[in-house]
Structures are given as C-alpha cells and as structure tokens.
C-alpha cells in the first residue's frame, strides 16, 4: 500500500498515512485530487478505480471516507477488508467510533494504525493482539495527570 487517507464528506482530511516518500507539496496535490475524485462518485459505484498508475480502494463509513492507494499487483478485495478491520479496531477501542473520536484522539488513531499496518503491509490481523498492544501502552501511563471528562460523549452528536 502506498498511502491511506481518511476524509470527511465535506472533504476535510482526518488522517493521512504515507508509506512512500513524497514531498509535502506532492502529498497535498494528491490529497486534493483524490478527495475530489472520490467525493464525486455516486454511492452505488464500485469501490475501486484506476488513478495514475495506482489502484484506489475506498469505502465510506457514515460521514468518513477511507481511501487506500495500492499497487498494480495488490489485491483490491483484501484491501477493502483492511479498511474494514481498521474501522473495527477503532470501533472496539473507542466504543462505537465516530468521526469526532478520530478528530479529538487523532494520535490514537495513528497508534492503532501503526500496530495494524506497518510500512504499508499488514502487520497483525488479530483484533485482540492489536488492541492488547494499545491497551498495554495505555496501562503504562502515569496516573498523576488530571483526567479529562468523557470528551467524546459530550461533543458527539
């Protein structure tokens, strides 16, 4: 996989992960172009499209689009399920995830992704193992810091 982008229906980028070296300018250009292309597609259309020399696999979950760019020989369907498994991981971790969880806890979204995918390849597919790694990390935290209120529950909706 070359990169993964999460963006909202309004075209706001929520998460970006690049597995190939690109300049910031190039990244912005790709993002702009792809967000436009994907948002222009109708709901019943197929989840794959050719774009430059890459294959784009995308899927919409509620207000968020998950969009992966894979190479020619990569498998589209399994990529679709990479997206789904990532959504499941977020869902399990945040408890019924929504876009706001990802906005307010973007760093967690990145940490979970790193446990699941590394260097553009699937590292660990077991939900238990991925979440174990993240929760272990959470346990390592010092307790002395002031706790926030349950942010997502009051901002959500």
């Amino acid at each position, binding site marked *: 996989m070359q990169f993964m982008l999460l963006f909202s229906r309004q075209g706001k*980028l929520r*998460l*970006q992960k690049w597995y190939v*070296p690109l300049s910031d300018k190039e990244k*912005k250009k790709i993002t702009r172009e792809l967000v436009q292309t994907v948002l222009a597609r*109708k709901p*019943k*259309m*197929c*989840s*794959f*499209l*050719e774009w430059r*020399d890459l294959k784009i696999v995308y899927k919409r979950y509620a207000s968020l689009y998950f969009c992966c760019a894979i190479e*020619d*020989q990569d*498998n*589209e*369907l*399994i990529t*679709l*399920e*990479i997206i*789904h498994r990532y959504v499941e991981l977020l869902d399990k*971790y945040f*408890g019924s995830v929504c876009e706001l*969880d990802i*906005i*307010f*806890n*973007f*760093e*967690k979204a990145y*940490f979970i992704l*790193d446990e699941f995918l*590394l*260097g*553009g*390849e*699937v*590292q*660990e*597919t*077991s*939900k238990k*193992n991925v979440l174990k*790694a993240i*929760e272990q*990390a*959470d346990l*390592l*935290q*010092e307790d002395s*810091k*002031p*706790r*926030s209120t*349950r*942010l*997502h529950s009051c901002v959500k909706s």
Partner: protein
Amino acid sequence: MPAVSKGDGMRGLAVFISDIRNCKSKEAEIKRINKELANIRSKFKGDKALDGYSKKKYVCKLLFIFLLGHDIDFGHMEAVNLLSSNKYTEKQIGYLFISVLVNSNSELIRLINNAIKNDLASRNPTFMCLALHCIANVGSREMGEAFAADIPRILVAGDSMDSVKQSAALCLLRLYKASPDLVPMGEWTARVVHLLNDQHMGVVTAAVSLITCLCKKNPDDFKTCVSLAVSRLSRIVSSASTDLQDYTYYFVPAPWLSVKLLRLLQCYPPPEDAAVKGRLVECLETVLNKAQEPPKSKKVQHSNAKNAILFETISLIIHYDSEPNLLVRACNQLGQFLQHRETNLRYLALESMCTLASSEFSHEAVKTHIETVINALKTERDVSVRQRAVDLLYAMCDRSNAPQIVAEMLSYLETADYSIREEIVLKVAILAEKYAVDYTWYVDTILNLIRIAGDYVSEEVWYRVIQIVINRDDVQGYAAKTVFEALQAPACHENLVKVGGYILGEFGNLIAGDPRSSPLIQFHLLHSKFHLCSVPTRALLLSTYIKFVNLFPEVKPTIQDVLRSDSQLRNADVELQQRAVEYLRLSTVASTDILATVLEEMPPFPERESSILAKLKKKKGPGTVTDLEDTKRDRSVDVNGGPEPAPASTSAVSTPSPSADLLGLGAAPTAPAGPPPSSGGSGLLVDVFSDSASVVAPLAPGSEDNFARFVCKNNGVLFENQLLQIGLKSEFRQNLGRMFIFYGNKTSTQFLNFTPTLICSDDLQPNLNLQTKPVDPTVEGGAQVQQVVNIECVSDFTEAPVLNIQFRYGGTFQNVSVQLPITLNKFFQPTEMASQDFFQRWKQLSNPQQEVQNIFKAKHPMDTEVTKAKIIGFGSALLEEVDPNPANFVGAGIIHTKTTQIGCLLRLEPNLQAQMYRLTLRTSKEAVSQRLCELLSAQF
C-alpha cells in the same frame, strides 16, 4: 468502555481542537492557530523548564496544526527530547511527531538516531516496537545507514518477542524498498524463510511480505520458501472456519495471510517437486470448490475475504499458465462473477479475465463471455467498470470476433466518457489493423473512427492508415473512393481532410475515370475545405495539389491559379508561402518527366512496430499490451516473410524528394527511418562476427544427419573428423537451456588460435539468446576443452544456430561449421491430459492456419516402442488411451518461450501397409506448427 478515560486525556489539546472546530471562517481559524503558535513558542522559549506532560501536550498541538495543513517550523527539538522520556506516552507522541514531520536537519537526525538506538537496545519490547515503527514510518536513507545492519539481527534473534519480530520484518522491508543496497544479505536470510513456519500467525503474516519483496531480487536464496509457503497455505485452506481463532475473519481463516502466501508463490514458477506441486494444486482446487459452496455468512466481509483469496488464487493459476483444467475453471468462475449483483465483483472479474484471455489455454473459454461483456459496456453505470469491459474486449479479440468487437467499440465510442475516448480510439485502430483480413474493412473502420471521434484521433492513427494504404495496393482504389465519399459531408473533421488529401494526392487517379469524381471535382472538393483548416493541413493540401498537377495535367491551370493567388503566394505563414512559391515554380519549369520523377508515388513504408501500439503502451504501461504486441510481431513476419530492411523506402527519405519531405511526415514518428539494425549489439557473438562471417566454412558434410539425431535427444557426438571431435551435453527447462560443448583434440599436436563462434542469423537472433565465454585459444594434443552455452528462447524460431570453429593445426588453417541442435522442441514441457480435454483443445485449434499436416514415407522400421520413445524424446507428453485407434500416437505439450507459451497437440497415424505416416500438429501459431511438423517428420 469510554475511550479517553483510558488514555491520557490532554485537556488543553481537546479545548484547542474544540476552538478550531468552532471557528466560523478560515480567517478565524488562522487567527486562533497563530495565537496558539505564539503561545507554544513562548512556552518553549520561556525560562521555566517545561515538564514532560506540557511538552507532550504542546508537541501534540503542533502536530494537530500541521495535520490541518499548516506549516510547522519549530518544536522538533522538544519532540526529540520526548523520545528520551521514560514515560511511554511522552515517548510515543515524540515518535509520532518525528514520523510525521521529520526534517533532514542533520543535527536532529543524529539525535533521533541516538534515541532510537537506545530504545532498540533497551530490551523493552514496547519501546523497541516504537523505535521500529518510527524507522519504518520515516524510512529515510539516513535511518537505513544507521540501522539496516541491526534489524536483521533483531528479526531472527531467538529471544525477540513476537511483536518485535513483526515490526522488525516490516521495518526491514521498508528500508529495503527505499535503499536495497543498505540491507546486507547473509546468514539471516535462511532463518527469515523459516519464519514461515512460525507458530505465531502474526509473525508469519509480517514475514511473508518481507520474503516476497526480497525474493524478487534474489530468487535462488529464497527458493526454499516455496515448499514452506505451500504447506502453510495448505494448512490454512483446509482448516475449519474456527480453527484459527482470532485469525479467522468472518468465517474465513486467515485471509490476509492466504493472499500474501499466494502472492509469494507468484514470484516463482510452478514447484518442481511433484509432492509439493500436488499439494498446491489441491489447495487451488479447494479454493475453487469453496467458491461454489453456500456462504457461511451473509455479511459482505465474509464474501469479500473469501473472494480476495479466490482472485489471488486465480492470479496464481494464470501466472503458472500450465494447468488447462484450472485455467478453464477459473474462467468459469469469473464468468459467474460477470453477472454478479455486486459491482465490485463484476469489476474484478472483468479485470482478471483480461489476463486470462492472453493464456493459450483459456483464450477460447474467455471468448464465450463476449455477449456479457458487450452488455456490460452498454449497461454498466460506472465508468470504471465500462473501462474494464473495453480492456477485456480488447484482450479477447482475435480474428474470429474482431468485426463484432470493433463494431461494438465504435458504437460505444459515440457515447463514451471523454476520459477514455482516446484510448478506445487507439484500441479500435490497433484491432482493426491487426485482424483485418479485408483491408476495405480496415479503411472503413478508421474513417468511422475519425467521423465519430475525430478530436481523439491522434496523429499516429492517421499516419498509420496512410502507411497501410500505401503499402497495400489492393486497397488503394477503395480507399480513394471512400475518402472521396466521406469528404462530401458538409462538415467533416480536419483529420479526415488530412487523410483524404494525402490519399487522393497519391491515388486520386484510381477513381478519376468516374465522371462523378473527375480530377477537377476531386480538386474542388478538397479545396472547399482548405480555408477551414489549420496551417499544417493546408500545407499538406498544397502538396496534394502539386501531386495533382503530375497526376492530372488537365487541372494544372486551375491549380496554378490557386497557387498564384495572393492568399497563397503572400501568405503570412512562411511555410505556406514557400510551398506555394516552390510548387508554382516547379509546375511551370519542370518537364513532365521531371515532374513524374519528383512527384512519384510514395514508396512502401518499412514494416515496423506500429506507432499506435507504442502510444497505447505508453498510456497504459507495458503490462497490458505486451501480448498483443508479440502476436503482432509474428504477423509482420508472416506477411513479409521476415523482417526486411526495405532499402527502397530508405532511399526515398535520403534523397531530397519533395513528396517525402513536404507532406509533413518527415518529422513524424512513423516516417520511414533507417533500416532496423541488422545484427550485432546483442552481445551474442563470441567475437568479431562481422569480420569472420565471410570466411565461415560451409556446413560440414553429414552435419544435417547428425543434427536430426539430436532433435529427440540431448547428448552425444555432434561432429567428428580426423582432428576434432565435438560432443554435446544439454539440458532444457521451460524457455531456458544450457549446453556443454566438448572439443576434443584427437591428435598429439596443439591446436592454436582455437576459436569457436556461435552464429545466429538475423532472423534467429531476436528469438534465441545464446551466451557463452571464449575458450582458451590453445588446445593441447589429446586434451578436451569445454564451453558452456546459456540458452534463452525468447520467441519461437525456425533456423538453428551455427557453430563455426577455426584453429591452426600444424601449419594449416582449419575451418569447420556445424549446425548446433538447438531446436524449438527443446523448450517443450509435456502436458498430461485426459481424452476429453485433448479433443476439446483439439477442436479449439481448428483454424486452418493452426494445423499443419505431413504425409510421408517411413525411413526407419515402424516399431511402436521406438516411435513412443521418439515422441517422448521430442518433448511432448505421450498420451495413452486418448486416441480411439490404439495404433495412433497422440501427444501434448507446451512450448515455453520468454514472451509466450504455446500449447501444442500432435497426432501421428502410422499406416503399416503403405509404410507411411500421417503427422498432424495443431498449435495456436502457424509458424510453430510448421516447424514442429518438419522436425518431427524427419524422425521416422
């Protein structure tokens, strides 16, 4: 499970994010951000040392601001400081910041690398993983230099935790992709392969990706992975849906790992070991069988995961391209998907069938779906799916269905999306040319293309139609008539004016007899378009006019009037003005003889790769069109009886003929260039072939007979006289071979300047690659020297290479030439098949060009066992109990060449009474059938 309470909620960060979200305008957002940046800057610069938590919070805010799309130019140092914190979350945020925002400040890199080094050495698996993730995320050369040597050690260390191994494997993969030179291969590679056996599925999942990447560059070092991958795959495929616990995904056992293993296997040819191969074929069959079972769940995730494995399995079957049974099953499966209600599956089935269409074994099976595909072209609502349908039609096209496919593509073109029109135009143009039996059809098709989608017809396309019309005199009259008629339309595309102008200028005389298209009418018709055209087209038309002056003396005054008019002679465009002046002058001063010479008909263009094909290749990347291109090359060989350099046309370019230059084709890519380089440059000849060629001896007497003896065997004595004996030992596998040539000095005197040379004719050279090293020029009396020749069959071939040996013996110069028995059948792989399959394939190859038959008298006693041995020695499988007549022999096999594989079927019918044989060969390629028939006939 409220998420945030588990983590370390950073209240300040949450407030900041809320503020940003509440901003009503872009300006307000920028204002809020600038305020925050100022605040953070002052905190970082302030006298008060920040505690870890605050540092983390501010770094996190900076990261958020960066991810919003703003530039961040400070804070890196604070992030690096966080790396050395012993609090996990602080370290984690530090690494995240570095991963996202690394900059190549060398001072910083050194500090970062130091921190990573410490974490890697910490033996704390959580810290090690963080460090590895960071290296994998950044993947820069600097990091590669610092760590590429350490990571293999971590990866294979016995005491590394599973999670560390997983991260190490993928981290190494990323570094290898970025800078392969930095990753040293070594003893660890063998141990990496054995990770395929690891108990932990996650470790296997990560390791397969690494191995797949590494083995592409070093296939031999990793080839043990094939059997390990097969047994791993077999265990997964045959496991029940719950066996693998958390690695089962919606009732599908380990889909990601399965797909990766199938990908890995695609890096290698089919396993040689029969047991391994059997096990693998069993796996592939199981996957195909499972596709027919009712789904275990209605969830789309279940079917996606299952089908992901199925499609990867089909890719592997196509990659092997050697199991006709599996190929046809794959094709049937995809056929079902073509009508599936899921758009995604229809899309993938069309895509996958495209590759299946290029296999010898499944091409016919793919063709049966033509109506469904055409229907997809008409009814799919998604342009990306229609695009796939176009690709598939292009791939499945052959002589039998070309008219239908081209017609469908043309009619689709009328409504096609603008984004894919040019590509369709190119495809139609290529198919029309490639499969034209009747060239009037070709001309009609191209003119239709211009009519329907003139704007998308590139220069290459109309150049090509002109080349073809010029090269084929049977279509010239028709072309002239058709363009003349097409030009009658009140509005016609400028490309049509170009084609029409050029063709009438060359062949207008062929229709001038008809009073409805008399010279004057032709001229007026063209000239009526003149004023609407661009400068290059007008320039072309002026050349047409001067050609008319030569063809039709009666219109000369009319044309001179036009040339003389102010709008031509004083045209602001210098090119047009010059043409008008020169043509006018030429028409006045030159005698009819000189005019006729200067304005002679264009000579034929040399056959060469179609420029349209080159263009399509550039557009689509090489993979998609190679197959067509290969077939195409064969065709041009067929038509011309070999790649002729066509010297006639070359001279036409080099002589200053105005017709060649002025028609504007001079600079075009399709214009005739020099003849193709005839020989040399391939590193094939051992030494100066061009010098020695003239003195190569004629073939030694008896060498023909010896040659024939080697058709069915690989070892033996090829040549012997009183001085020299040449022995051969050879082995072939797929399209590769190795031949050991032994030169024995039978005398007691030295051979000096002993120089064996391999000679491939110009026809042979592109199809057969031979590589060898020179041998020692001195061969002692009684000694034997050995030479190894590496052989690669690029494409099918007819001639055999010649081995020329020159040396000095005593005072005399010796010169011997023999044919080297490298024949097409050496690249046979036997194929076993059942009677039913055989006859099905036999029927599929029923085109007259595909079959070659020879009836001949037996030269040797007609012994059944000897005949069987010969057929097996020839390389094909001997199929028992296939032919209803037990006296007959049938065989099947595949000729492997680098570019393609050609399935071959053969049948030998002995007639004992008449002492005759009838030999029939069917392959998909005429030249192959022909050559194999010749070779085999000589054996009985």
